């Protein structure tokens, strides 16, 4: 592989483009495939098969050829509401899993750069903050403030935009009143039940890193279920 191609691949990953790396394992040639862009001449005759792998987000050697396809999809976006202690550990776990993370917290003393270096922190109320983030059914929300003023608008946005994972911190009691508020706001039972609350899988721990681990474990499991 040429150094130039490696640099292009990394650039595309940084830009969160969807693409595939195509390699001919007998000739050693490789190139980048992108939907709706012309492909390198040497790979033209495999175009249909490459497209097929790309659509299915598959990796592997195309049957009866020497062409290896590796597909790259956009990383999953996690939005954390509440720049609290648990969030600091969540960020560490989420980074090694290559999630793309944004933190929303209108409280400036929580959402400081010193507490979350090199991270996108939006120091605004959720309604305003979501105007700055593109969200869809590939987005996850973890609400950690257990303050209805901050969590509720974020949860409502996540439900309306069909996030694939919505988790909300809080005891069973806190969650019950949260569900009631969402019901009053007009959300259906199915929608409300899709919220993971109390958030996380049962690990038994109560420290901030343990709670973060239980949340991230649930998030990964739900990511693979899609």
């Amino acid at each position: 592989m040429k150094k130039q191609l490696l640099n292009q691949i990394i650039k595309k990953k940084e830009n969160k483009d969807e693409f595939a790396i195509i390699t001919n394992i007998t000739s050693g040639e490789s190139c980048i495939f992108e939907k709706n862009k012309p492909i390198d001449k040497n790979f033209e005759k495999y175009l249909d098969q490459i497209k097929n792998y790309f659509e299915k987000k598959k990796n592997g050697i195309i049957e009866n050829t020497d062409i290896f396809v590796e597909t790259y999809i956009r990383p999953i976006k996690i939005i954390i509401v509440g720049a609290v202690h648990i969030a600091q550990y969540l960020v560490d776990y989420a980074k090694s899993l290559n999630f793309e993370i944004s933190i929303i917290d209108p409280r400036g003393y929580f959402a400081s750069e010193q507490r979350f270096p090199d991270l996108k922190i939006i120091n605004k109320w959720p309604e305003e903050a979501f105007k700055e983030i593109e969200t869809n059914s590939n987005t996850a929300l973890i609400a950690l403030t257990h303050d209805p003023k901050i969590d509720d608008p974020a949860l409502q946005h996540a439900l309306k935009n069909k996030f694939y994972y919505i988790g909300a911190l809080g005891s069973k009691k806190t969650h019950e009143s949260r569900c009631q508020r969402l019901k009053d706001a007009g959300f259906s039972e199915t929608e409300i039940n899709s919220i993971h609350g109390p958030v996380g899988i049962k690990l038994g721990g109560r420290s901030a890193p343990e709670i973060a681990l239980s949340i991230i474990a649930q998030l990964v499991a739900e990511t693979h279920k899609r």
Partner: protein
Amino acid sequence: MKNSFDEKILEEAKDWITANQKVVIATVIQTWGSSPRQVGSRMIVNEKGDFSGSVSGGCVESAVVRECIGIIKEKKPFKKIEFKVSNESAWEVGLACGGEIAVYLEQIN
């Protein structure tokens, strides 16, 4: 749902190259049976034999490192190698788990 949990091995390869090291990328391109790592798994190796990432659960990494150093020395741009089930009684390299894998090595140039 592939690569959302990407391991950033290519990014590391770029850093090694920037540090003037010769780098070979090893990629799992095919698996048969119960192989420990899925297709697309990667490791990188430099001319000194330092490596990062993995192509198995530690079963064949040492052999991959040797092969990578080999292609750097021979100035070979790429090579495909296969690993089969190991014979437990022999000190040969293989996959103790019983799977088979094919690994594609390519030098960055």
